[in-house]
């Protein structure tokens, strides 16, 4: 998948299997990815696991797990909030669009998470308070949201062959409709449409840009370009 880190690095990542996006004192987020097709370099996230860790008078530990074609509107234990503690309602989950868009509010740590399903893949976006994101020890050193994609796992677009009948011009045209600025989101969109042969991938890139627009405190950093962000 494409990863936009906290520090505005933008990488296309070949990571296969389970990799942590976040691992701190309050939150653990793990994305499980597999190749888009047999033998393909590019991978896509098919499972997301989020653990909200037990915290004082606010919440019991809660686990959220989403898989392609199973985007529940509840935590693993069937609950929709942080439990019976006095601040249990400071963690809540709601469905914006059943089966395709879930939003989790964790007010006790200043965090909002959006999980979407589009074109057989899962997208993850988070807005998190700075001191929550920084609350990890040296042992919790692998977090794609913090360090971006490790160099050995980065994928350049020339490493992938496109599938299906969609030409690059058609892919560019499809992506241009929702992403008029030719930034990292646009290039990711073209890459995804070419690699998968599925025009629905435009929706994932467009939604990721909209989430960034809603979540970034500084909109000047919204558009990332290859020259300044390591974008593909």
């Amino acid at each position, binding site marked *: 998948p494409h990863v936009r880190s906290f520090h505005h690095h933008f990488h296309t990542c070949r990571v296969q299997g389970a990799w942590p996006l976040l691992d701190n004192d309050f939150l653990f987020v793990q994305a499980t990815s597999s190749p888009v097709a047999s033998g393909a370099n590019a991978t896509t996230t098919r499972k997301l696991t989020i653990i909200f860790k037990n*915290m004082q008078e606010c919440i019991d530990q809660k686990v959220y797990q989403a898989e392609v074609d199973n985007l529940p509107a509840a935590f693993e234990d069937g609950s929709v909030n942080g439990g019976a503690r006095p601040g249990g309602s400071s963690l809540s989950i709601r469905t914006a669009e059943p089966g395709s868009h879930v939003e989790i509010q964790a007010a006790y740590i200043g965090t909002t998470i959006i999980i979407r399903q589009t074109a057989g893949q899962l997208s993850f976006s988070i807005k998190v308070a700075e001191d929550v994101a920084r609350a990890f020890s040296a042992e919790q050193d692998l977090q794609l949201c913090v360090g971006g994609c490790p160099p050995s796992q980065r994928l350049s677009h020339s490493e992938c062959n496109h599938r299906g009948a969609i030409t690059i011009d058609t892919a560019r045209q499809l992506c241009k409709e929702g992403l008029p600025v030719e930034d990292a989101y646009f290039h990711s969109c073209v890459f995804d449409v070419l690699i998968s042969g599925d025009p629905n991938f435009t929706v*994932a890139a467009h939604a990721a840009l909209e989430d960034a627009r809603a979540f970034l405190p500084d909109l000047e950093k919204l558009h990332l370009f290859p020259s300044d962000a390591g974008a593909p």
Partner: protein
Amino acid sequence: CKILRCNAEYVSSTLSLKSGGSPGALREGDPDGGVGSSGLCRALRSYALCTRRTARTCRGDLAFHSAVHGIEDLMIQHNCSRQGPTASPPPRGPALPGGGPVRSPGPALPGASPARSSSPAAPDPCDYEGRFSRLHGRPPGFLHCASFGD
């Protein structure tokens, strides 16, 4: 290696047992998991769990290996089962703006200040933004991360 943290947490949990006082507080076997009777076993199981978590980074540390053997001895001595409830999670968490000790169970609330959070007019401890703004006189900073596509 964070064995000293495990040691400190164990000492802290057994101190509270001793201050609790009854002789039964040091025996295993309360099926409902009551705080009193199985307190020491709970503390030992937590201690053992803590050492297991730190085993990789502590493998060359003498204090770590002493602790592992000490826990074994104490568990046998007090007839503690290996499986069972553990002590409440210790207070831990990130460096707090303003610093200072925190309340248990569970990690410290980020953005919290103990002096303020215990005052009668304290903000809702589970409203991060409100608490941070009140403590720092400005809204907190936020970060964004995303993963999508293929």
